[in-house]
């Protein structure tokens, strides 16, 4: 019988609180970037996902993602744990042997919550609120829960393949990033895209969101150690380091290329660095974190630049370029820089002579990305045909705050 460790329990509980804070932080991060008439709409989306998935998770989401594998194919969890049946004070040795299973469950709930919130940046300023609610429920159930099972669930096929994803590069960021790409394409461009000035209405709000994200990400990554010790410490340190390196590399490249070191860009670089280190944070050391973070800043910068210059896709707040690209890099970088010296439960990466890990990492990126892209597209097409995805043109012009929520943000 495993026994509960108080320090580990505190660590995961407080980490859960930190990750919870990240969800509305995404709302603020995005909210500052949209136009004044749509700020409440996007913040409300983050808030309502928090409410909705909190309930979905305890009713059946947790069981689908982490429950005993259904059928043994490693595709989805069974329904044994619906309504948190059997998820209580006793630890679950498959996931976290030193804390109550309920603590692991609520910590994981926060990941399931934040993931669909990331997507909202793709269809900012034009999504119908009622459809959004249905989309969130479907997406979390059909896309998120299975992917979480593949990568983290007992018997999940990617887990069995030896894929390493410490804190959700695949599960959270790839899945949201590719869903965002699908969503941006299917919902179509905002009215006025590339012709009207759509400058951020409140940059300090975005920065505040970015600050809270950086802060909460300590819980996201270091909490994923699930114990309070040197592994958590390593994750904490590399998280901070990669965020810093991402902010600096973005600043440097944007200064050289084009213009001035803008605040929004620097914060974006920090978030790119955070997204990239997420899968790697329990497997790489601080010096490699500089490489990962700096690489993320550069890659996301050029991905955004490419999107703006060469495509007509209106991924409004660049969810794909930031989270999709950033974390694809991070998952692959894990295959390169992972070290058993950092985490004895991990394996060595390419630079330590292991050619196997990087292969499964690449497979995992493709599998999760493709699954999310395709299934998200199907969900959206169905919703478009039934409820309608998009508000009317008049509503879009008047703004979502008034037309969807009957409110104005500021007097």
């Amino acid at each position, binding site marked *: 019988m495993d026994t509960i460790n108080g320090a580990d329990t505190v660590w995961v509980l407080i980490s859960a609180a930190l990750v919870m804070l990240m969800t509305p932080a995404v709302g603020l991060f995005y909210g500052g970037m949209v136009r004044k008439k749509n700020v409440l709409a996007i913040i409300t989306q983050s808030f309502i996902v928090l409410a909705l998935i909190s309930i979905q998770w305890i009713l059946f989401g947790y069981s689908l993602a982490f429950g005993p594998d259904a059928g043994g194919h490693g595709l989805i969890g069974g329904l044994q744990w619906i309504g948190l049946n059997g998820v209580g004070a006793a630890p679950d040795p498959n996931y976290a042997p030193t804390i109550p299973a309920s603590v692991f469950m609520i910590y994981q709930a926060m990941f399931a919550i934040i993931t669909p919130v990331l997507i909202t940046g793709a269809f900012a300023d034009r999504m119908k609120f009622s459809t959004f609610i249905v989309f969130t429920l479907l997406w979390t159930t059909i896309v998120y829960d299975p992917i979480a099972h593949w990568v983290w669930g007992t018997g999940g096929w990617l887990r069995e393949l030896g894929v390493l994803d410490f804190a959700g590069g695949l599960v959270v960021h790839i899945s949201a990033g590719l869903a965002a790409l699908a969503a941006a394409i299917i919902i179509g461009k905002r009215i006025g895209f590339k012709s009207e*000035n759509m*400058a*951020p209405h409140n940059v300090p709000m975005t920065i505040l969101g970015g600050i809270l994200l950086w802060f909460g990400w300590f819980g996201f990554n270091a909490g994923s150690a699930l114990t309070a010790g040197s592994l958590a410490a390593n994750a904490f340190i590399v998280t901070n380091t990669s965020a810093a390196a991402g902010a600096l590399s973005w600043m440097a490249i*944007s200064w050289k290329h*084009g*213009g*001035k070191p*803008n605040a*929004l*860009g620097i914060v*974006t670089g920090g978030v790119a660095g955070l997204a990239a280190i997420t899968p790697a944070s329990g497997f790489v050391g601080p010096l490699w974190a500089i490489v990962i973070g700096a690489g993320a800043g550069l890659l996301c*910068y050029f991905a*955004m*630049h490419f999107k*703006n210059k060469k495509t007509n896709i209106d991924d409004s707040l*660049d969810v794909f370029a930031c989270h999709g690209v950033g974390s694809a890099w991070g998952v692959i970088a894990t295959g390169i820089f992972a070290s058993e010296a950092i985490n004895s439960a991990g394996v060595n990466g390419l630079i330590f002579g292991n050619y196997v890990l990087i292969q499964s990492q690449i497979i995992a990126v493709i599998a999760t990305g493709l699954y999310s892209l395709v299934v998200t597209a199907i969900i959206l097409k169905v919703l478009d045909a039934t409820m309608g995805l998009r508000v009317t043109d008049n509503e879009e012009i008047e703004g979502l705050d008034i037309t969807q929520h009957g409110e104005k943000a500021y007097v």
Partner: protein
Amino acid sequence: MKKIEAIIRSEKLGDIKNALAVAGFIGLTTYEVKGRGRQKGIMLQYRTQEYRVDMLAKTKIELVVDDPDVEKVVEIICKSGQTGNIGDGKIFILPIEEIIRVRTGERGKGAI
């Protein structure tokens, strides 16, 4: 009586306001506007993009004065508001037919 509307650089408001007060012109009303003229806009940045904003922040001053004072006021605004660079702004003179003080109902010059 005339109404003088001046669109000026916002950073010159303090000087103009003070110069007017010194010359005895206390009453005035101001608000913030955006203007486009010969002055080229500013380049702003949004992540990887640059975009030009052609409307620049300016301040508008409005004051109603007696006819003989118009020239004096115009001169003060020009003098205190000049930097010599494009974008210093414009002054427009409009006719006023009547002026009433809300508090007393008083009319004409006395109400200025």
